[in-house]
């Protein structure tokens, strides 16, 4: 593990039947068997509506790869909860459109291929084409330091 390893986030879209269960099942099983650390959430939409503080820590760090749905939706779900994603360091894999093997291949790859739509980073603040400074890290939870979770 290097300090700039991107994080992995899997959204289960628990409260809707919009993602093929075979795709979700394939991605989650392969992720569980990968030996990698990851974050898994039941439903990013629900977290966004609640402004769940976890979104800020999920958006932080040296890059993140997110298996969920359309990048435009994911971008604004995070931003409207006050946890904007860094457009230069975020890759969204779309389980509504992509096949399971394609999603998991990118999710487990060590590099990030940024694909958020360009534009503002947050509601009505930064001008188009600019992203804010990433938030300061508050200390990492890692395989070596579970207790700081």
């Amino acid at each position: 593990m290097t300090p700039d390893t991107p994080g992995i986030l899997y959204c289960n879209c628990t409260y809707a039947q919009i993602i093929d269960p075979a795709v979700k099942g394939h991605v989650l099983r392969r992720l569980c068997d990968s030996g990698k650390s990851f974050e898994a959430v039941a439903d990013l939409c629900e977290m966004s509506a609640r402004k769940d503080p976890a979104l800020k820590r999920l958006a932080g760090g040296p890059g993140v790869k997110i298996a969920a749905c359309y990048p435009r939706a994911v971008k604004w779900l995070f931003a409207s909860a006050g946890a904007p994603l860094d457009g230069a360091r975020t890759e969204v894999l779309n389980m509504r459109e992509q096949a399971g093997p394609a999603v998991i291949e990118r999710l487990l790859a060590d590099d990030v291929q940024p694909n958020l739509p360009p534009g503002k980073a947050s509601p009505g603040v930064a001008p188009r084409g600019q992203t804010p400074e990433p938030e300061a890290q508050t200390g990492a939870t890692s395989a070596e330091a579970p207790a700081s979770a």
Partner: protein
Amino acid sequence: MSLRDQTYLRIVLYEGRDAEPLDSEQRFQAVSRLLNQGFALTHVGGAGRTAPADDVPALVLGRFQNGLEKLAAEAASERVRFTNVSGLTDEQIVAAVESVRAEKQAVQHGGWKPWFPVIDYDRCTNCMQCLSFCLFGVYGADGAGHIQVQNQDNCKTNCPACSRVCPEAAIMFPKYKAGPINGDAVKDADLEREKMKVDISALLGGDIYSMLRARSERAQSRFSKERDSGKALNERQKCLTKLAQAGDIPPEVLMSLPSPEEILRRAGEAKAKALAALAAQR
């Protein structure tokens, strides 16, 4: 119950140093079950990175043998609790998590389908049409007069009507079936289509809700005079299906619309809010 201001609990499934790994099937089943119950979790494996620590209470699950005391000493925090899941089935793991959640009075998930509008601020021009249109107080404006989705849980499940009045196709419902409302890229043709819908609603009097309500009431009074209730029901269903198909508005939403007087009152309120927000921008 407000969606916000609640206590959160972070779940960590720990398979790092000083813990035995779960077997593959148990790990997958436990993770799947927790997600299906609405929990989020951090899985700590041998490699990779997880999100930073924060100050919410945490429950660390793992197959700890002799390592538990050491890990607990390292944590040195009352916020962090450890549960040894050795020998537990995945159902029992979920039950253990649920009991800590209840004890901490942390958010209970699953009571609400997260269906609500999400604004694409790269497209939004802050015209306030959505705010004036919605009768359920979903939209509001911040101090600077910028449109915001403020009361997500007031939104009518499966109703994407406000996305149809947005002239910029800036309103998404991520759980909607089709693009661009589901977040798929907006094409020029979509924009033309969206504009057309606004024109249609203007032709019908500018207030889609009043129109729908009036049609629904006309239908109701006609049905109440019907002798053959089976036939009446049939017709009613046909009419509602047509409306639902045309505007994508679920019949339950049509049926739950308030009285015409109440609609007028709420529409007036929404319009006043929109005007105030527009004035604040100047």
